[in-house]
């Protein structure tokens, strides 16, 4: 009874959100921005699996975002002009990247983990930067086209938006599944008390690695979509500031809530765009907002909505 009532409310909320998402490009400042917001929402969600649900403060997720973007771009340009294939390639490569980085860093904990991930991201950045032949160096990978899928032509920003929306929607469904699965629950236990989880027979490191790879996979998808949206891949997509942004989005939105970080992404990108249109000191204002958001509402946007602090308190 009660159960069904709750799930009923959830259903209503969900459909409302979906409706908003569908109408979004029509009231967003401009379509391309709406798409960008979706992409970063996806990225933030992927990241929350690692930060919010597993308590790993990764500062290297730009690596997977960028890896996805470059792979997708290069695939379309050099290998075969198919968006779906390219996105898939992007996801796979990012996942592999995440697997490598994860494997090498996950045994380290806390701040050490954070900085190793950063280190690897920086190396990816350096490689992309130096390997001009493949990546176009710091001019970025220019002129990535949007080959149409079957009869579906994606050159129009509006169509692209809905394509992205579809991808994000599916990813979110999977995301929800993951966090409510036995796997997801175990992650939360590990986050709470690593040693205890170990002592009751959980192979902690493997769980962490798996979720890291899953997160990398979706980050890669986000990156790939970004390449499509921009028609090019900026070297910036591998820069540590991207990692920083996604961390901030997660906190502002509310970690460990999956949707919080997405809200964070939406809020931050929208604000930055709007503010920067009427003043050059937008970073000053954003700074103030960040500070206020910490002093003011602890649990992030989601916390306000739920009136509850998000679970994560320690990073391991």
């Amino acid at each position, binding site marked *: 009874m009660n159960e069904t009532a709750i799930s009923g409310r959830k259903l209503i909320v969900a459909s409302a959100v979906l409706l908003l998402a569908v109408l979004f490009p029509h009231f967003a400042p401009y379509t391309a921005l709406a798409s960008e917001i979706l992409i970063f929402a996806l990225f933030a969600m992927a990241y929350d699996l690692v930060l919010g649900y597993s308590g790993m403060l990764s500062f290297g997720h730009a690596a997977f975002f960028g890896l996805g973007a470059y792979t997708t771009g290069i695939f379309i340009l050099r290998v075969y002009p198919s968006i779906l294939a390219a996105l898939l390639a992007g996801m796979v490569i990012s996942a592999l990247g995440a697997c490598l980085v994860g494997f090498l860093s996950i045994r380290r904990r806390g701040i050490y983990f954070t900085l190793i991930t950063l280190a690897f991201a920086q190396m990816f950045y350096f490689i992309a930067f130096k390997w001009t032949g493949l990546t176009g160096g710091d001019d970025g990978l220019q002129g990535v086209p949007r080959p149409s899928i079957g009869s579906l032509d994606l050159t129009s920003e509006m169509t692209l938006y809905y394509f992205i929306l579809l991808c994000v929607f599916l990813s979110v469904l999977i995301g929800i599944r993951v966090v409510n*699965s*036995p796997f997801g629950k175990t992650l939360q236990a590990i986050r*709470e*008390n690593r040693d205890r989880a170990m*002592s009751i*027979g959980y192979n902690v490191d493997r769980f962490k690695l798996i979720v890291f790879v899953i997160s990398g996979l979706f980050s890669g998808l986000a990156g790939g979509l970004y390449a499509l949206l921009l028609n090019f891949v900026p070297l910036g997509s591998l820069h540590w500031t991207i990692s920083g942004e996604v961390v901030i989005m997660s906190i502002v939105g509310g970690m460990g809530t999956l949707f919080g970080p997405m809200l964070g992404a939406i809020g931050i990108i929208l604000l930055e765009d709007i503010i920067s249109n009427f003043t050059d000191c937008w970073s000053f204002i954003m700074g103030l907002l960040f500070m206020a958001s910490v002093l003011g509402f602890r649990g992030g946007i989601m916390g306000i909505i739920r009136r509850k602090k998000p679970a994560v308190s320690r990073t391991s």
Partner: protein
Amino acid sequence: MFQTKELCKSYGALRAVHEVTLDIGPGVHSIIGPNGAGKTTLFNLLTGFLSPTSGKIIYMGKDITGLPPFKVSQLGVSRSFQITSLFPDLTVYENIRIAVQSRLRASYNFLISSKSLEGVQEKTQNVLKQLSLTRFEGLEVRNLSYGLQRVLDIGISLATDPKLILLDEPTSGMDRADAKQVIQLVSEISTKIPIVLIEHNIDIVLSISDIITVMYQGTILAQDTPNEIQQNEKVQEAYLGGY
């Protein structure tokens, strides 16, 4: 079923555990000894949380020296900690459920709902009942009093239906009532599952142990049945008497 051969662990000059050769069988096997004797260290060695400086650990004929904790646990060795160790932000129910789930490969499955795991619910409820924690099941454990937290701690070890349980001072910081209840629990379990117990409350130890090992400065001082131990004057002066 558990054997150690000349097990040593030293921190620099200090021999926390020195040439301990043990043989743990069914029933309640208590390990007592003054503070700093090396009991907890021994536990950490047995469960893979520390790797020995030298020596062997054999479990059911298998050499498990240097195995990581989760492997040891999967072999059926479960432990509680001297300092309570729980999942503070999760509910009491979830704490137990996670422990129950830990036995299933499905733990790696990230595409099904955790609720859909058959058997887990029931088992969790049973354990909660056994510990009479059912009425707290919705509470986040950080809001549980220290005593109840210790009970839950044992519950978690129990929920992994182990073949052997190591308990490090399960009754410390408990009031008589809860302590009684726990000891009750322990002796019940011990009829089915062997238990290794670190305990300072000598009355409890004497009452429920089948065999007692006395440690002193990292080494085994004596090992015998309760009443023998009581007589043993070496023990008298080392443990109950001098320090």
